[in-house]
């Protein structure tokens, strides 16, 4: 039996068992036969032994010799009787005679035949003996018929007769002896033969058992080898899988990075397009620009989808629940999508059931994303009719917990069953023709459903061709006790100088540096700027600060390495809190930052409240001051959240749905009549300021503003600007106080410098230039009398004009 050569495992698996199996059963059969043979031999031996016991046991030879001996004894007593005739002698003769007769029956053929088949003299001797008995019986009978003791002649005659029997009997005894000897020899030979057979069978049996064992061993070895091969295969597969997974992860990460990298310049591009639209254009140019902008928006949406799907694929898509004002969220979404719907001539109805709580715990950003997707689809695929968003609570039932149900229904083209079945598959849209007609990646629904499931719910669809579609998002309803408003947003008001913190901002990008500087100075803090990690570490060796804001990706030394270097500094420098600034939205990036020793993480674009909150957390005296506000603090409230009478995106919307919110917000720069429905125009009337051609570009650094908007969002910029250009601006007041002729002349230069930095960082270039001029002037020589007043007037005028322009353009809300 040859084990199959190592080869295709499957073929082996099919063919191998047949061969050895047949052999094993054959050997087993032969073994059984061999055992049967052994049993037969054994039973034969037992039979032989029984024969011996039954027939030979009484010792035939002994019987014959005994008969001969008895004959001699009888002859002896007869001889004695003949010589000494006595009655007692006759008794003895009779007894011996009886014993003699009893011996005759023992050589009867019926006893001997079984052992000794043919004894030639037996019959003859037996006949002679019986003849003797017949003759002697009457003579030895007791009573009248018998002979008397004195009949010596009779006894002599009997002796004589016995003598004649002696020779044949002797011969017969010898014959029997020989025959029995022969018999014993034969029996021995039979036993020997059987022993030989038994030995042969045993040897055969042993060989078979050996063969059996060998086959079994080979089988086991083959099994082991196969097991080993399978293990190796499994290991290879595992390695291959690990490789493939690694490759997939790398690809996903690359995709995520790429889409992320693409997004940043893209926002800049879109910003520029918007600013371009604000310039005087011919109708055709404007149309081209609108097409470019729409293409850009579409591309940005695709990039966002790709970013999400790669996150989803790498299993890193997560939701971060927090307290959400649900009614407001729904309102914002409906307001934003309502403009899209109205642009298409569709009414968007929004109904929130009364039992829906004001506040709940959810990931508001992701919930919005789902609603944007579903409403976007509904608007896209509904040529006419209406789109409806209904929010209700689905009570707990049959083991399912209480859920929030958000239903988006339309009167659009609907879907058939086959389309429904494919709906949530990646890259699948209704069908190819629909894809051509409507565009899109087909990723949105998959992302939405994954998000809904992450939030403890799902998305259900109900649709029929031509009957419209109804998508229902359910999420786990986690009620919260306190309404979201209970925690007021941190005050973005400047802190008094006593509390002012020293903050080190490290960022390689000048706009980001400027922006952070503007935000922090606006908040009343002192800022030191570094362009990379190495500079920051060097600065920290010699200086103390309260907080470090550190970009993660920088040349020379990145934020992670810098943080490790800072942590390695001698105390107390190493204890400074470090907060990462990064546009990297992944949790893994956050994890890496924390592992490097960073204390927290601020995601770009930076939002002012987040910065305020971070300062409050990491600069203890700020938190303490907030708990017990100093009465001296002027209650100047920079409107982070400008009051909006009409529906409009909140700052969060502006950031998370940057693309749709960004442009409409900037659009009022162009003629308000040209796009009345595209943006949530502030309802308050604006001061009618006549703006001459080129004036805006002269006064405002539009490029810088666009970049700031890309970074913080328009709302962020608005809130910063509102703080700086308030009717009673603390920044301007500070400078004007320094310009008081009674004040320290040396203070003018510093105040002017600070004011210049603040206004320049927000793109107010004309105002910055004015401030710089006075800074330089005061640096050359102390201002003369009257110059103070002049400077104050010029600054006030430029300040008011900048403010008016910003109001006119929409950067400031009235």
């Amino acid at each position, binding site marked *: 039996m040859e084990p199959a050569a190592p080869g295709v495992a499957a073929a082996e698996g099919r063919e191998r068992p047949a061969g050895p199996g047949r052999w094993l059963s054959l050997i087993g059969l032969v073994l059984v036969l061999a055992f049967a043979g052994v049993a037969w031999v054994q039973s034969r031996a037992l039979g032989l032994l029984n024969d011996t016991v039954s027939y030979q046991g009484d010792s035939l030879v002994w019987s014959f010799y005994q008969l001969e001996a008895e004959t001699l004894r009888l002859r002896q007593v007869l001889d004695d009787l003949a010589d000494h005739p006595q009655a007692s002698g006759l008794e003895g003769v009779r007894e011996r005679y009886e014993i003699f007769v*009893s011996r005759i029956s023992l050589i009867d053929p019926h006893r001997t035949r079984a052992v000794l088949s043919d004894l030639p003299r037996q019959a003859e001797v037996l006949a002679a003996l019986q003849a003797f008995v017949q003759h002697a019986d009457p003579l030895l009978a007791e009573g009248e018929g018998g002979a008397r003791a004195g009949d010596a002649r009779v006894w002599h005659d009997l002796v004589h007769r016995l003598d004649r029997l002696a020779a044949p009997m002797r011969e017969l005894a010898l014959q029997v002896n020989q025959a029995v000897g022969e018999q014993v020899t034969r029996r021995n030979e039979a036993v020997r033969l059987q022993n030989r057979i038994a030995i042969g069978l045993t040897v055969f049996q042993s060989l078979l058992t050996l063969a059996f064992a060998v086959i079994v061993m080979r089988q086991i070895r083959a099994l082991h080898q196969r097991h080993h091969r399978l293990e190796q295969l499994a290991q290879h597969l595992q390695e291959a899988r690990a490789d493939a997974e690694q490759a997939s992860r790398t690809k996903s990460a690359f995709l995520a990075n790429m889409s992320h990298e693409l997004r940043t310049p893209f926002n800049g591009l879109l910003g520029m397009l918007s600013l371009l639209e604000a310039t005087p254009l011919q109708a055709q140019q404007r149309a081209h620009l609108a097409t470019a902008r729409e293409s850009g928006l579409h591309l940005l949406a695709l990039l966002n989808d790709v970013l999400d799907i790669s996150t989803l694929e790498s299993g890193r898509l997560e939701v971060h629940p927090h307290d959400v004002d649900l009614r407001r969220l729904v309102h914002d979404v409906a307001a934003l999508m309502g403009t899209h719907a109205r642009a298409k001539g569709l009414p968007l109805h929004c109904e929130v059931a009364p039992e829906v709580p004001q506040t709940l715990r959810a990931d508001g950003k992701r919930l919005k994303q789902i609603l944007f997707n579903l409403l976007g689809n509904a608007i896209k695929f509904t040529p006419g009719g209406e789109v409806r968003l209904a929010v209700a609570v689905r009570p707990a039932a049959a083991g399912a917990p209480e859920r929030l149900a958000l239903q988006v229904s339309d009167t659009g083209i609907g879907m058939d069953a086959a389309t429904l079945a494919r709906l949530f598959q990646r890259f699948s849209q209704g069908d190819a023709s629909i894809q051509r007609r409507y565009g899109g990646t087909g990723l949105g629904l998959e992302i939405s459903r994954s998000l809904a499931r992450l939030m403890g719910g799902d998305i259900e669809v109900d649709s029929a061709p031509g009957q419209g579609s109804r998508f229902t998002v359910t999420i786990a309803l986690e009620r919260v006790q306190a309404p979201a408003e209970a925690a007021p947003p941190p005050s973005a008001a400047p802190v008094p100088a006593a509390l002012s913190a020293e903050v080190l901002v490290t960022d390689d990008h000048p706009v980001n540096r400027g922006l952070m500087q503007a935000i922090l100075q606006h908040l009343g803090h002192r800022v030191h700027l570094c362009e990379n990690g190495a500079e920051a570490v060097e600065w920290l060796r010699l200086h103390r600060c309260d907080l470090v804001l550190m970009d993660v990706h920088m040349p020379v030394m990145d934020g992670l390495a810098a943080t490790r270097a800072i942590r390695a500094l001698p105390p107390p420098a190493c204890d400074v809190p470090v907060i990462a600034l990064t546009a990297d939205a992944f949790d893994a990036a956050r994890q890496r930052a924390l592992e490097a020793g960073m204390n927290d993480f601020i995601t770009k674009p930076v939002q002012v409240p987040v910065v305020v909150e971070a300062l409050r957390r990491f600069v203890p005296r700020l938190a303490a001051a907030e708990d017990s506000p100093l009465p001296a603090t002027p209650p100047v409230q920079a409107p982070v959240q400008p009051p909006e009478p009409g529906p409009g995106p909140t700052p969060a919307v502006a950031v998370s749905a940057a693309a749709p919110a960004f442009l409409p917000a900037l659009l009022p720069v162009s003629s308000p009549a040209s796009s009345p429905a595209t943006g949530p125009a502030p309802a308050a009337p604006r001061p009618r300021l006549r703006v001459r051609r080129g004036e805006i570009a002269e006064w405002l650094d539009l490029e810088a503003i666009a970049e700031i908007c890309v970074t913080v969002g328009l709302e962020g910029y608005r809130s910063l600007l509102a703080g700086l250009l308030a009717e009673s601006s603390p920044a301007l007041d500070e400078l004007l106080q320094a310009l008081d002729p009674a004040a320290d002349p040396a203070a003018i230069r510093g105040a002017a410098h600070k004011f210049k930095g603040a206004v320049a960082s927000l793109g107010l270039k004309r105002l910055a230039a004015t401030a710089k001029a006075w800074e330089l002037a005061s640096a050359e020589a102390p201002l003369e009398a009257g110059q103070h007043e002049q400077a104050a007037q010029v600054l006030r005028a430029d300040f008011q004009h900048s403010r008016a322009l910003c109001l006119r353009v929409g950067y400031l809300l009235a």
Partner: protein
Amino acid sequence: MNPSSAMPRRRVLLGAALAAALWRPASALDRPQGRVVLTIGGLIGEKNAADRAEFDMAMLAALPQHSFSTRTPWYPAARKFTGPLLRDVLAAAGAKGQTLRAVALNDYKVTLPVEDCKRYPVVLARLMDDQPMPVRDKGPLFIIYPFDSDEALRSERYYSRSAWQLKHIEVE
């Protein structure tokens, strides 16, 4: 059955039994009246001769009789054997030994353990097929084991212990 006739007979039997019970310890073993067919010597408690117990056929026939049919190596067919149990005969002689030496008329001698008599109903056969056995037909007494009742008995050991033409037992 007639109760009036049964009553006297029962009374007679009772009286005979009582008489026998009273009389027995006085006279150990009867003297044989007929021809002595078996003598028992050696370690025995009951003697009716100088140094041995002697039995005639009547004394053996007076003991409780047992009979069974069995095949033997000496006859082609099964034969019925009848006689007292060997242990009863030994008890009658007050035998106290552990082994018996049986001696036959033809001077055949064989030793058998007393244990055999206790374990098996060994019969001292005096009748074969209900007929007395002449000497020429292995009589007058024949020690017979119940060969057919136990396979262990069908061996040369027990065949050789079955002494025929028995005339004397020596208790040792």
